[in-house]
């Protein structure tokens, strides 16, 4: 383990990004994330991959300043216009985040991958870790889930155009707007929902905080056609792993439909923020998010008391 008094968030808490204090007023937030295509359109993929990478900075309570492209592309075999479109989508999101592109690095690779290395800043006293859930907290989720299932359904060509569009726009939406509203509230802990799914990241928060967290399954917003796609057999392999990994730390207070359980475990790309704050503030936060365009926001859970870290489903 790294030892340095200025290292505020390092590897050990499985948090979203690293945080390093530069002065009493300023800390550096650093993160890198790159992914394989989740939609067919290269411009949309660029937007989604960039939003996904920028999200880690927002989840720490920070503000992105600079970004660098990370690219793997079969440059000799594939049309360069595809790469241009990916980078155009990415740059658009970097600018929307108020950050600037400094450069990047590319590698020839048979499989396309794209993402960003992002540097941001945060006040050292206002870092939002994932491990400070407290008694009386409720949890607010800011985006609907199901992007892993829908990305698989899109690959299979088994989803309507409307559902594909909504999944694409959900993934391409920056967590910036949700984060800016969140920062006005007394938030105890925050993370963003990505590869481990809602179940996995909630469990991570529960274990790191030493709490039992109850998820209200019916309250979790789902993208359209997700349930149908899971019943068709379109759950990605990673989501199965999530489900099996979490299984032993889950208590079903009321029985949950196995298909719904799979969606809770579904690996997300560029998912929403999961925010832990006092219950009455959580209700206000969800309402304000909704009224200001973060339409997928909902109160989805509650801290139930100290434990080694358990998820209850009700």
């Amino acid at each position: 383990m790294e030892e340095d008094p200025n290292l505020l968030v390092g590897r050990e808490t499985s948090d979203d990004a690293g945080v390093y204090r530069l002065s009493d007023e300023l800390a550096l937030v650093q993160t890198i994330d790159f992914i394989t295509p989740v939609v067919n359109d290269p411009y949309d993929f660029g937007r989604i991959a960039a939003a996904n990478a920028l999200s880690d900075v927002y989840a720490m309570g920070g503000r992105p300043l600079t970004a660098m492209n990370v690219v793997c592309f079969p440059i000799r075999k594939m049309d360069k216009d595809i790469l241009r479109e990916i980078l155009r989508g990415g740059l658009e999101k970097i600018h929307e985040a108020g950050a600037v592109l400094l450069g990047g690095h590319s590698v020839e690779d048979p499989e396309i991958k794209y993402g960003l290395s992002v540097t941001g800043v945060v006040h050292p006293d206002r870092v939002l870790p994932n491990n400070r859930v407290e008694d009386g907290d409720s949890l607010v989720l800011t985006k609907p889930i199901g992007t892993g299932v829908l990305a698989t359904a899109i690959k299979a060509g088994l989803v309507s155009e409307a559902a594909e569009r909504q999944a694409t726009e959900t993934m391409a939406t920056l967590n910036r707007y949700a984060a800016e509203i969140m920062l006005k509230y007394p938030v105890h802990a925050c993370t963003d929902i990505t590869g481990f799914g809602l179940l996995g990241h909630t469990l991570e928060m529960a274990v790191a905080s030493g709490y039992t967290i109850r998820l209200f399954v019916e309250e979790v917003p789902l993208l359209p056609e997700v349930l149908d796609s899971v019943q068709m057999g379109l759950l990605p392999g990673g989501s199965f792993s999530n489900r099996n990994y979490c299984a032993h730390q889950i208590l079903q207070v009321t029985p949950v439909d196995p298909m719904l359980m799979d969606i809770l475990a579904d690996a997300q790309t560029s998912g929403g923020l999961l925010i832990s704050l006092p219950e009455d503030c959580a209700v206000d936060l969800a309402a304000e998010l909704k009224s200001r365009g973060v339409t997928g926001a909902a109160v989805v859970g509650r801290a139930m008391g100290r434990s080694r870290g358990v998820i209850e489903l009700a």
Partner: protein
Amino acid sequence: MGQETLDCRGLACPNPVLRTKALIEKGDTDRVTVLVDNAAAGENVSRFLGRTGYSVEILDMDGVFHVVGLRKESTETVHIPSQDTKISVENKIAVMVATDRMGRGDDVLGSKLMFNFIETLKEMGQELWRLVLVNAGVKLAVEGSESLPALIGLEREGVTILVCGTCLNHFNLLERKKIGETTNMLDIVTALQLADKVISLS
């Protein structure tokens, strides 16, 4: 009347489902066997076939999953290869546990043995059908019980856990039950009657 086998080993999701879909959309396939090499693909193909009007069994043979779908109106029966088949649903075993300790002699030892027993029950595999908890056995299913994770695991594997409501009430544990269906004596008697084999621990 067709019978088809599809080798989808080495394919990642959603490809096994797509290949299966393409095959049965050609029509006339009463019985389809899809080979996949990972549990996720097996579950996905099984769901797809289940939804498309097939009854499905998954056979795990040395890491190759044979997903066998039989069109429901068809009269053919699924032939299950013997020996190396891990999944068979011919025998239904009901285990009734009427104590939170195993045996008499030393209570601390008895609790540990019971913990071990519940942990190890999964080795019965698919034949384990119901677990009935009565009298002090219900204490295994309440919050704080060390056996909860194992019970959760069993329930996920499809074992129905019946917890005696009268007993929970007697110990004042109704509110603290964490797993299983709270049930009555009629359900318990019916479960014991329908089981092919009953193992009782008291």
